[in-house]
């Protein structure tokens, strides 16, 4: 049955791969370099390079009449970023992103919790698909579907009328700030659609985080006298937090940057994404557009840093 050599040390391999393999074994650093050779230039040079180039543009200015860029270092653009009209845009967007994130987490949590802790077997698969289907359905078409729902002549109004609840809707629309002429022309509408479109991004990370919470920690809490509410507050929630943070990277960032939703469902008050889009595309003011992008970059920078600290990357 002796089908292999008796030598304690086998001969060197002569095939190309064999030699290469020996070579990499002896030079692990070179091997690492080989692995990183394709992705690192792509992400580290092309992508990061583009980002830096963009940031650099924010230090130029634009000739107001002809719309051509004036390649001279200036902080003017940033001064412009902070004029009240622009600052409003930033504030409005960040508040919206925060609220959308909060609401997404609130709606996503029960779904994720159920899927993680109770759904089994076939149900679990069904839940997963039920989350994935809306997640991957065409973003644009979803947004337009909401336009139909929220319009003054739309389905929601129709439904409220059928239920004789139009007064309720009108009362809401009469409120300052959140109200408006119709839901599709109000912050309420923008908010609903943002939540709808980004919320699925929250479910899977929370579910993943919850699934990693060992059941016996929940039992331990009960064992030590914690009632279900206390167990949730002191054990489950803190341990699901990395998942919530991971999910909120998406909800927050996607809200910060989107320009399509507030354009279609909104009251013409700009969001950062629209401002960037408008400055870049409509006004051709690349420096100001670049300065606007600094806001999400800084915010997401902090966000990622915090997420990393909280171990949220594992839940992505």
């Amino acid at each position, binding site marked *: 049955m002796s089908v292999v050599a008796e030598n304690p040390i086998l001969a060197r391999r002569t095939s190309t791969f064999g030699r290469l393999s020996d070579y990499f074994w002896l030079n692990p650093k070179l091997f690492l370099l080989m692995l990183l050779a394709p992705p690192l230039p792509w992400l580290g040079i092309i992508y990061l390079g583009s980002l830096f180039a963009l940031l650099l543009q924010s230090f130029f200015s634009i000739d107001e*009449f002809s719309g051509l860029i004036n390649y001279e270092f200036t902080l003017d653009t940033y001064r412009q970023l902070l004029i009240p009209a622009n600052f*409003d845009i930033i504030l409005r967007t960040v508040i919206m992103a925060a609220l959308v994130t909060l609401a997404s987490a609130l709606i996503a949590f029960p779904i994720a919790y159920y899927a993680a802790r109770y759904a089994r077997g076939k149900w679990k698969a069904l839940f997963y698909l039920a989350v994935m289907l809306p997640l991957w359905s065409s973003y644009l078409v979803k947004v337009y579907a909401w336009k139909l729902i929220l319009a003054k002549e739309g389905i929601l109004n129709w439904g409220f009328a059928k239920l004789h609840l139009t007064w309720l809707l009108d009362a809401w629309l009469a409120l300052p700030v959140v109200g408006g002429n119709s839901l599709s022309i109000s912050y309420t509408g923008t908010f609903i659609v943002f939540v709808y479109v980004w919320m699925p991004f929250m479910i899977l990370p929370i579910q993943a985080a919850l699934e990693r919470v060992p059941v016996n920690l929940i039992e331990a809490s009960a064992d030590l006298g914690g009632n279900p509410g206390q167990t949730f507050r002191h054990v489950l929630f803190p341990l699901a937090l990395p998942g919530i943070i991971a999910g909120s990277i998406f909800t927050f960032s996607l809200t910060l940057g989107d320009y399509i939703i507030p354009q279609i469902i909104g009251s013409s*008050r700009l969001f950062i994404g629209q401002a960037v889009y408008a400055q870049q595309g409509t006004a051709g003011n690349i420096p100001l557009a670049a300065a606007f992008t600094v806001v999400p970059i800084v915010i997401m920078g902090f966000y990622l840093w915090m997420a990393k600290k909280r171990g949220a990357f594992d839940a992505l």
Partner: protein
Amino acid sequence: QEPLTELGKGEGEVSIVAWAGYIERGETDKNYDWVTDFEKQTGCKVSVKTAATSDEMVALMNEGGFDLVTASGDASNRLIAGKRVQPINTDLIPSWKTIDERLQNAPWNTVKGVHYGTPYLWGPNVLMYNTEVFKGEAPKSWNVVFEEMTLPDGKSNKGRIQAYDGPIHIADAANYLMAHKPELGIKDPYELNEDQYKAALDLLRVQRTLVGRYWHDAMIQIDDFKNEGVVASGSWPFQVNLMQAEKQPIASTFPEEGVTGWSDTTMLHADSQHPNCAYMWMEHSLSPKVQGDAAAWFGAVPSVPAACKGNALLGDEGCKTNGFENFDKIRFWKTPTSKCETQGECVPYHRWVSDYIGVIGGR
């Protein structure tokens, strides 16, 4: 830059930045098609990028990659100043002579005697309204979109009107003030000193409280009139025509304060890759058939008076209906500059841009 001296063979394609409804190939209505034949005859395939505002057009031209643009007066001078467009050789455009003389040397297409493009269409910014709400009676004044009031149907105009989402709309406010606050001394709605400008913005701030959503895209405005309960707005004849074709209760009017308007020029990009096809298109665009069809479709006035006669789509009354005789009453879009004829020092366009964003944002 020296213009082309001789027309060569077509390059096979031409790309045009245009207003919605300006260049139709029969996709919405088979009868309105002035592209297919051109492509067949010249072998130049036409691609169109629609832009919703003049700013967008300027930005697209700055970015490059296009041959032609149908620029309004508030964009054309900027394009010329920025050297984004090139002078044209009118000799290469046989139909140049047929152009309405009022337009041949208009300040928005001719600088220091040099022509930058061929006039395409012109027209007014009309007041579009819902005939049911206004009980069949056209509103007399622009005040329905500037001041809170009860409309003939007994409900407030609040939340039921719209305004154009472009800084040039400040001129509409100034135009309104010319009639209602003569003490401001506005002579030209595109040339405003600080006080006049401030008064216009104040008026627009009032308007903001009445407007639910500003209109940016012609098609979306149509949607808003149909689905969002909007009943009055400054608009283009284009939207009016489309909705009337759909049997919507829509009409338009020239209010007593007069109107702003646009006169558009087909301009050639400085770095055009397909100048021959571009010249062919400019020539094509001046043919009475195209002029008439396009004017009919958009609800505009042709630049070639010959088009007013015998065009099936436009009809013989078409030019008159669309304002052929009102040329002098229309205050055409142009770019506000700091040096201005009427008062020496005016608020320049970049302030209009940022301040209008502020007004819409509630500042």
